[in-house]
């Protein structure tokens, strides 16, 4: 019943309409960075602030998609995806810090009067190794954690709690100055990326385009995955894991694969987030952030591919408006959103739209 939205929506609303809407959105997103390159007094010029904001939301949308892959399809609610996101961000941040520091040590290390780089910083001055780290750090952590968690068949709320404790532990670890990641302040004041000025409009536009590209690529990947036999198996894991085992499948491998894939997607999103926003600190790992990602997915509609993107856009759009207009009431609103969505919109906005389109 929870078929991917692309299929059902195209059946209901006709393939042309949904394709047309999708194409318009993609074109708009592609046009945004080009418009930002216009001179400042031009009527259609898009400010750097807007571009950064939309780029940030697109990164969050990738996280939402990754979370939906494990929650909506495989039934594993992770409350620790912020950790993978931040790990990817930190891996990219290490490269950016080395770029900013030149041959010397990054600023926070000289402040702690360290004389040499810790071993895990080795090679981070090379962009290629940093990219490897972006994939490896969240991927390996997810692999180890997932291996043990799925081996002992931790699932449901137990799994959620363990992931939450994991990201909490990560946050505590990165808050320490001795860990070697800038402690409380994290990484900031980046200068260049691959020799290009990070604040320049051209660099920003390219980073934005890369984010759109990653989003489309992961959307395509998830679509192919969920359409395949693998996707059917994931849904089976979600709905009746024991029956799947009685049928002769071993669900551990499937779960582990989708879990690691989701973590890596988060890491990539984090790596694109950091150069655009210009800061990464341990509060990205706080359990609050990770659980907020769950409400993006829930609001948009889990078990669909468009839903999480819609949810991430809606919640973050509202957040940036609310925190300026009524800063005291944002938490009330967010809390109410959590409650109302779970009570009245179990299938999210997408489910609502689907119901509307049915007679």
């Amino acid at each position, binding site marked *: 019943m929870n078929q991917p939205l692309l299929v059902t929506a195209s059946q209901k609303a006709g393939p042309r309409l949904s394709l047309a809407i999708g194409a318009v959105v993609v074109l708009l997103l592609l046009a945004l960075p080009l418009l930002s390159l216009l001179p400042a007094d031009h009527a259609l010029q898009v400010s750097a602030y807007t571009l950064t904001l939309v780029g940030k939301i697109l990164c969050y949308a990738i996280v939402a998609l990754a979370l939906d892959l494990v*929650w909506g399809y495989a039934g594993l*609610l992770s409350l620790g995806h912020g950790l993978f996101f931040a790990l990817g961000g930190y891996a990219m941040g290490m490269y950016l810090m080395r770029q900013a520091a030149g041959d010397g040590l990054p600023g926070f290390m000289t402040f702690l009067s360290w004389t040499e780089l810790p071993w895990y910083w080795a090679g981070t001055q090379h962009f290629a190794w940093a990219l490897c780290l972006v994939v490896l750090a969240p991927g390996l952590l997810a692999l180890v*954690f997932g291996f*043990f*968690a799925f*081996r*002992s*068949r*931790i699932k*449901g*709320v*137990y799994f*959620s*709690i*363990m992931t*939450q*404790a*994991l990201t*909490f*532990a990560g946050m*505590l*670890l990165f*808050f*320490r100055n001795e860990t070697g990641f800038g402690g409380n302040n994290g990484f900031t004041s980046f200068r260049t990326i691959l020799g290009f000025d990070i604040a320049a409009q051209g660099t920003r536009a390219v980073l934005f385009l890369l984010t759109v590209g990653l989003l489309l690529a992961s959307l395509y990947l998830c679509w192919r995955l969920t359409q395949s036999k693998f996707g059917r198996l994931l849904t089976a894991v979600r709905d*009746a894991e*024991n029956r799947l085992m009685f049928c002769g499948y071993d669900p551990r491998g499937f779960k582990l694969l989708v879990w690691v894939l989701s973590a890596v997607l988060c890491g990539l999103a984090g790596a694109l987030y950091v150069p655009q926003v210009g800061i990464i600190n341990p509060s990205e790992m706080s*359990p609050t952030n990770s*659980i907020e990602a*769950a*409400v993006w997915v*829930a609001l948009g509609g889990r078990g669909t591919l468009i839903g999480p993107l819609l949810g991430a856009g809606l919640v973050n759009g509202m957040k940036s408006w609310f925190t300026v207009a009524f800063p*005291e*009431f944002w*938490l*009330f609103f*967010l*809390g*109410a*959103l*959590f*409650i109302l*969505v*779970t*009570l009245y919109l*179990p299938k999210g906005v997408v489910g609502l739209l689907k119901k509307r389109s049915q007679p």
Partner: protein
Amino acid sequence: MLRLLLTLLLLLPLATQASEGEFFLTAKPAEQARLLEGWAAQPDAARLPLLENLRQGRIAEGDTRKVRLNNRLRSLIDNALASHQLLSDNTDTRLAAAQQLQKSAQPAQMAFLDRRFASEPDAAVHAALGLALANLQLGASEPAVRLAAVRLLGETGDPVARTRLEALLQPGVESDAAVRTAAETSLAQVKRKLMVGELLGQAFSGLSLGSILLLAALGLAITFGLLGVINMAHGEMLMLGAYSTYMVQVLLQRYAPGAIEFYPLIALPVAFAVSAGVGMALERTVIRHLYGRPLETLLATWGISLILIQAIRLLFGAQNVEVSNPAWLSGGIQLLPNLVLPYNRLVIIGFALAVVLLTWLLLNRTRLGLNVRAVTQNRNMAACCGVSTGRVDMLAFGLGSGIAGLGGVALSQVGNVGPDLGQSYIIDSFLVVVLGGVGQLAGSLWAAFGLGIANKLLEPQIGAVLGKILILALIILFIQKRPQGLFALKGRVID
């Protein structure tokens, strides 16, 4: 004649006291210092009132003439007073005096201290005097006296003795080889004693943390076992309990200052009622509609917790509010020189155990408990037998939240009370529930104390953060062995 003599003899001390006071008042500062040193070396019980008055800056009660004192004279007066107080019959006074003398004793007092040390009946005062004496003797010129002092220091388990011995072992301080060796053995001895105290202290703070975790996790274990939902707003029930305590304290201060000493006791039923009421209201309005969808309940309760935190923040401000210990909860028992057990923590450990006992009685000896257990084991069958499951759900949820409210009262006595109070305990109490197994009081008990003690024992070795991470890793590994927690119900239920 004889009677006259006796009267004179009785009056003599008074007379000497009065004249000593007059003399002191008129003497020059250097003279006054010499006088005080003399008095300190040869105390006389009759001189005690004079010294006490001198500390107040006068020579007798009601005497308006001011005694001019400088800091040196003040410390000399303190020292002489301590010397005189050693003659007191009160053990506490003697102990305080001996501790004062450890810091301020002068070589001239050595003979007097030696006499008191030999005749002191109380063990604690004896030890304190020994330390004071040894401190003095370390400065003596004869190696034999220093040797005795070093040995004496080795027998105490006081942190002061360690610093003294370490200072003595600095190169170039002590010339005599025998004294040096003796100092080394004594130092090792003192360190061993101190370590025992430290370990006991860590175990005690572990027990204390465990009792708080227990109060936080007990209600969680009940609701999770019964409803299969994790209540993310459970930490906020702790916070509501703590804020109820604060409100009770403020209201009592304003309307019934006489009863302020017992405000934590009055706060207990209030906090229970507030938290239980909020909990039951939440169960009826939100959670009831989400049974069978545990992951979504988790999200909804998280939303509730956000709203509660923000509401408290708007009502009371984002800063911590001040909740003070009443007099009977401050202070502590000094077991070893470096081990103090604070009363508030002792009371909380006892309180937590009492709450567990009451909960056990409630679950195992009452009709409500019977119903709760029936619904936990098999909801449909219980409903068939006429148990009103909806009502049981509501009451059990109220019970769980109310216990958290009681935990909040306890927390307010040892920690800060602020809007984020619950957040810092919620993850730990989840871990307790995961480790202890669902709906098991014994499991929660062992898991809470185990986690608390493990946390506090690991903290000084590898730091608080790494300790937490290590414990998380251990829990993950532990769950490999026993996926359903320490004390799982045995059953064949499978979905």
